[in-house]
């Protein structure tokens, strides 16, 4: 979830929970230079002089999966606190100084990492680094209980706006708590619970900052109309004397599996019921991850996909259908959901979904279906090369690849994962992960209408 959303996005409904997708064959190289400061901060610099802008993108290697029981939502709350001023930057100046220089900024938190960016005219680079360094090195003296309270209120309103007051908004947390046991770090949603947000204290802020917001637990990507020499000079100037922190160690949780079907019903303020199916799959960049993306595209990527054709176009029993593979650092899941039209119940939708899954498991996709998905992915990759800044721009991608696979310029390699997918691989992947009873089936139904849910014991 981003720190804030613009008025246009709110009014036009442009906000989507999923990252933009895009692709190309010829120019997927993002040349970069990298260096590490003695305090452990890794820096990646990419030159792009096509537009006189610069993008600064900081990844802290901490996310909601690092939270402790009773403090869910804390990593994201902390992200908000990072904008509340630091020792040399009075409250409010972080945003004011950047806007006065023509720059934008934002931050976001996922299960696995927290990122912050500043985008603006190239001459603003020293200011961006000065501000980012001050909050990395000198945050705590300025953080008070009042500031924590204030952002707690903002984040609780974010939870209301994006989850509680949005139809089906609480589905995801209901899926997670059934897909993962309480001991697993993906058991809870990034936004956290209201009660845990309420419980967070100033001491929690101090401990979290000292543990995770250290130069050795962060990576800084700088991309745009700058030279590596200048970038390095400014980085050393502002980050050089920040002390290294303790090494962050994590024990990966044991792999989890569902042993059978888990059915659940959630009553919501909606008129049309929606069914969610969720399976355990694989984490990001592991061997079947890209194949599962292609599978999702074959199932529900646009109006020519299999589930759209059956549910929405031919049978006209659903208004929409979505499928996606969501691979994180620790684990992955695959979801399909579809919303019923008036007069139809979720059992009907589930039967058709299962029918289509069976058909695809038996026969596999056509070569054209796979090629179509690959072309779509390729186009998405290409368009991603257009922008240095923001969420999903080149600087953010360099950090993403660096953290997930250890190589910042992994663009072409990533695309090649998709190019290698075959119809047989899609079929095998579906058979491996999406058949059998081990899944969560969540029915979201109108209040007082549990009879519209998928019946318990329904198996594929």
């Amino acid at each position: 979830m981003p720190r804030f959303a613009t008025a246009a996005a709110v009014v036009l409904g442009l906000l989507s929970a999923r990252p933009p997708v895009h692709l190309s064959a010829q120019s997927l190289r993002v040349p970069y230079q990298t260096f590490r400061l003695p305090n452990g901060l890794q820096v990646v610099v990419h030159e792009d002089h096509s537009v006189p802008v610069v993008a600064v993108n900081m990844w802290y290697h901490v996310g909601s999966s690092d939270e402790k029981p009773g403090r869910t939502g804390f990593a994201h709350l902390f992200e908000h606190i990072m904008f509340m001023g630091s020792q040399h930057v009075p409250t409010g100046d972080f945003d004011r100084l950047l806007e006065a220089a023509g720059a934008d900024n934002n931050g976001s938190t996922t299960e696995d990492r927290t990122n912050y960016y500043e985008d603006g005219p190239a001459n603003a680079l020293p200011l961006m680094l000065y501000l980012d360094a001050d909050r990395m090195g000198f945050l705590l003296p300025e953080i008070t209980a009042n500031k924590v309270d204030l952002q707690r209120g903002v984040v609780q309103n974010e939870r209301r706006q994006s989850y509680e007051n949005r139809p089906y908004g609480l589905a995801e947390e209901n899926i997670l708590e059934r897909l993962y046991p309480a001991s697993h770090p993906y058991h809870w949603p990034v936004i956290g619970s209201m009660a845990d947000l309420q419980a967070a204290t100033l001491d929690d802020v101090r401990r979290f900052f000292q543990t995770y917001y250290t130069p050795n637990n962060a990576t800084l990507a700088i991309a745009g109309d700058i030279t590596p020499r200048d970038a390095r000079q400014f980085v050393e100037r502002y980050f050089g004397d920040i002390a290294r922190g303790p090494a962050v160690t994590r024990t990966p949780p044991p792999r989890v599996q569902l042993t059978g079907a888990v059915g659940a019903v959630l009553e919501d303020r909606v008129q049309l019921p929606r069914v969610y199916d969720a399976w355990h799959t694989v984490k990001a960049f592991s061997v079947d991850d890209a194949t599962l993306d292609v599978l999702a595209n074959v199932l529900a990527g646009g109006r020519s996909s299999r589930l759209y054709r059956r549910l929405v176009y031919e049978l006209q029993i659903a208004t929409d259908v979505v499928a996606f593979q969501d691979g994180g650092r620790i684990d992955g899941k695959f979801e399909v959901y579809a919303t019923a039209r008036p007069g139809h119940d979720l059992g009907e939708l589930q039967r058709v979904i299962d029918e289509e899954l069976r058909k695809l498991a038996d026969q596999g996709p056509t070569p054209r279906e796979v090629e179509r998905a690959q072309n779509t992915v390729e186009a998405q990759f290409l368009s991603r090369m257009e922008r240095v800044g923001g969420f999903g721009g080149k600087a953010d991608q360099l950090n993403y690849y660096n953290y997930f696979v250890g190589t910042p310029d992994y663009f072409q390699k990533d695309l090649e994962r998709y190019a290698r997918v075959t119809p047989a691989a899609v079929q095998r992947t579906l058979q491996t992960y999406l058949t059998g009873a081990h899944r969560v089936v969540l029915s979201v139904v109108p209040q007082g209408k549990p009879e519209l849910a998928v019946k318990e014991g329904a198996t594929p």
Partner: protein
Amino acid sequence: MRRTLGVLTLSLTALPAFRLSAQGVDRTKPPTLQPPPALKLPTVQTTMLPNGLSLAVVEMHKVPVVDVQLLVDAGAARDPATAPGLATFTATMLQQGAGARGPLEVADEAAFLGAQLNTAASFDGASASIHVPKRRLEAALALLADVVLRPSFADSEIARQRELRAAQLVQQRDEPVAVANVAFPAIVYGREHPYGHPLNGTDSATARLARERVVEFYRSYYRPNGARLLIVGDVTLAEARRLAAARFDGWERGDVPAFPSPPAPPSATTRTVYLIDKPGAAQSVVRIGHVGPARTTPDWFALEVLNTIVGGAFTSRLNQNLRETHGYTYGAFSQFAPRRLTGAFVALASVVTAKTDSSLIEFLKELRRIRDEAVPPPELAKAKAYLTLGLPGDFETTGGAAGRFRELLAFGLPLDYYDHYVDRINAITAADVQRVARQYIDPDHFDIVVVGDKTQIEAGIKALNEGPIVYRDLWGQEIR
């Protein structure tokens, strides 16, 4: 393709080994910045095809992608009174079979080309757009031309989309933000105004959607004269012209009826709170405003500065007050809606239910203060810098540049608009801001739309004494 080790080696050789002493850095004040880089925006070239279709091309060769936008004068302001939603429905129908392709084949072809194909209508116009890798541009333009010039409008597909839309209208009423976005224009513009009906129609109008209406609307408004084709990306003017002529030359001209004119403005009503009940809502969705000037007003530059100060950026007054000072919301903003006819001013937020009344107090306080007090110089300077120095970033991507140039084409603004933009913004004074604030933000005549849990918020709103409370349904209409 590079490996980390190789790159590390390279960086050590490419960069000098010197290190500045970090201890010496002065953190007590922010660094002084060099002057901003000179403004260097992509330029637009124009030409005309023989059939009257005007072509605008913006060459951007960094990434081999192209963004194509065909703007047609077929917006929802032209919806017949008996058929609200016809323009958006017609735009949707363009993709449901065209040329030799059936509806699913159109989608299949677009996906196969890696192309994002969109057809849509706003009140002021319709558009068909495609974003595609350069090497598939020719095939993508062929598809786009089929969609715009040769839509099938088969009865079976009309019926299918009509049923889908009926279900989507049910879904829309579950979403408080969508309800507010339908209700606010309905209330502000009123029934008689070309912008006063729901963009996606009503239940009864949807049930009546029939092939003849769609075909008639299409024949009247989907014409090359009055349409504009904008191609942005990795193409040259000559190439774009050749490709466009090959695909769009056969498009027949027609007499496109004049754009509707707005009715006489209704007599301004006194400030009123329109309450739309959403039992159990965790937040109240707030929209505050009234009609505003057209996009072409010479005051637009001053309005951009004004809005940046009031609610166009993160540090704007509304967000600083309602979010950063009070924590009532995740974000509070404002905007002047850019429109051909009557625009609108709107301030907006989703606020926690228990603080609905307190939030309205803060909204009104800020919207009165901007009229009553001159803007302090640093705040004015910040707003102007944010607008002018941020401009190059808006032209970084083909989609971003297309959006900016599209606005010029859609509103008939001069194509050298951005060459003068920085000077025009920088010329705005605090007195200008106050003048346009007094002229275009009028708290005495605000329509305040609140979508929320009536039982929890009604008493608090009443106690504010900021105007009568009127109850409206989920469409913003009177409850009968």
